[in-house]
């Protein structure tokens, strides 16, 4: 009968709920959905940037799978090569990592350092993400760094670019930092679109040791190992158009109840 009263209240006169009842309703729904505390009023949202657009595509793909049942969720092109190891590049049903994720978080890069044409080679660009609000009790199942490549004038379209992403593991005064290779892709200079690099190892590392999060570093080289400036080959940084700024996506799965190891 409580539900009946609630149903009547919601349908017929929701707006006439008193402030207190509305707060009760909000608290109830937040706790049911496991969402963090009450929403903070956000500054008026400028046109959505790349991360929300990507996450909205992912949301629709996941919801379609929930409605129809496993193996049906369709991934739009913008997401299709997400989470490299489980999804091929044609429009596949949702990969296991996406289907089984309990939480997916996107992070927009906060800090960018670049060594570009005004300095000596090798050129590189660094991206650092603020990962602080990570969900407790969940483990990283996959993470990727997404950066948009535009076409640039003067680029020989048939040239192949080798783009490699490293985790910055340890910084050393006046010397090159310690780097660990995370992923590398070879793309034709004439290609335009999103590139997704697998940074799961680094993301796991940062989840376990948040202070070790020194960001990632990206290099671009030609077939004959000549270093090229990241901006010059058309990779968009945080000063680029909002819908094409780089960001990171991390997939989490709630840690299963630790099963007792066989005696």
């Amino acid at each position, binding site marked *: 009968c409580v*539900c*009946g009263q*609630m*149903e009547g209240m*919601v*349908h017929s006169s*929701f*707006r006439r709920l008193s402030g207190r009842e*509305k707060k009760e*309703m*909000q608290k109830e*729904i937040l706790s*049911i*959905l*496991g*969402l*963090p505390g009450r*929403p*903070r*009023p*956000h500054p*008026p*949202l400028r046109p959505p940037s790349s*991360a*929300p657009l990507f*996450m*909205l595509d*992912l*949301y*629709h793909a*996941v*919801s379609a799978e*929930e409605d129809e049942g496993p193996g049906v969720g369709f991934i739009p092109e913008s997401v299709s090569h997400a989470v490299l190891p489980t999804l091929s590049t044609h429009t596949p049903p949702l990969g296991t990592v996406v289907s089984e*994720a*309990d*939480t*997916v*978080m*996107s*992070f*927009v890069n906060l800090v960018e350092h670049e060594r570009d044409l005004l300095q000596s080679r090798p050129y590189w660009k660094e991206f650092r993400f*603020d990962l*602080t*609000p990570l969900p407790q009790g969940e483990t990283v199942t996959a993470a990727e760094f997404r950066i948009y490549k535009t076409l640039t004038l003067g680029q020989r379209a048939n040239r192949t670019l080798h783009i490699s992403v490293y985790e910055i593991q340890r910084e050393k005064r006046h010397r090159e930092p310690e780097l660990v290779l995370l992923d590398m892709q070879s793309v034709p200079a004439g290609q335009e679109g999103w590139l997704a690099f697998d940074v799961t190892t680094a993301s796991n590392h940062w989840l376990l040791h948040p202070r070790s999060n020194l960001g990632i570093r990206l290099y671009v080289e030609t077939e004959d190992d000549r270093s090229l400036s990241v901006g010059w080959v058309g990779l968009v940084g945080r000063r680029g158009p909002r819908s094409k700024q780089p960001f990171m996506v991390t997939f989490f799965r709630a840690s299963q109840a630790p099963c007792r190891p066989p005696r």
Partner: protein
Amino acid sequence: AASPNTQRKKKHKNDLPHNRTGLLDHTPVSNGRQACKKHELYVSFSDLGWKDWVLAPSGYSAYYCAGECDYPLGSCMNATNHALIQLVVHLIKPDEVPKACCAPTKLSPISVLFYDDNNNVILKKHRNMVVKTCGCQ
């Protein structure tokens, strides 16, 4: 004993219930009460003033199960075999055996997309959160 020329009554097939509310389910079970079925309690996030915080969905359908699990002879009802037997035993010994109650028989997940305090975007999936079908348990 029935007289020999009585037609053998066709045994009433006790097929298990369909799990969608059909015509029969709207028949009031007795004195105007409805049989056990799923009801919708929809709350829109924009009504809650969360439009700029929750990107999707636009609202939350908090379904719930309500209705009677009485045993109307001769009509289909949302109940499992066990519940049918329990109901019959309840009719025989109402003080000892409770009757079956209307509860979810299937649950489905819900996903919510929202901004966190750092303006990062989070997709949170909650398994077994929304009632899909109800039945007498």
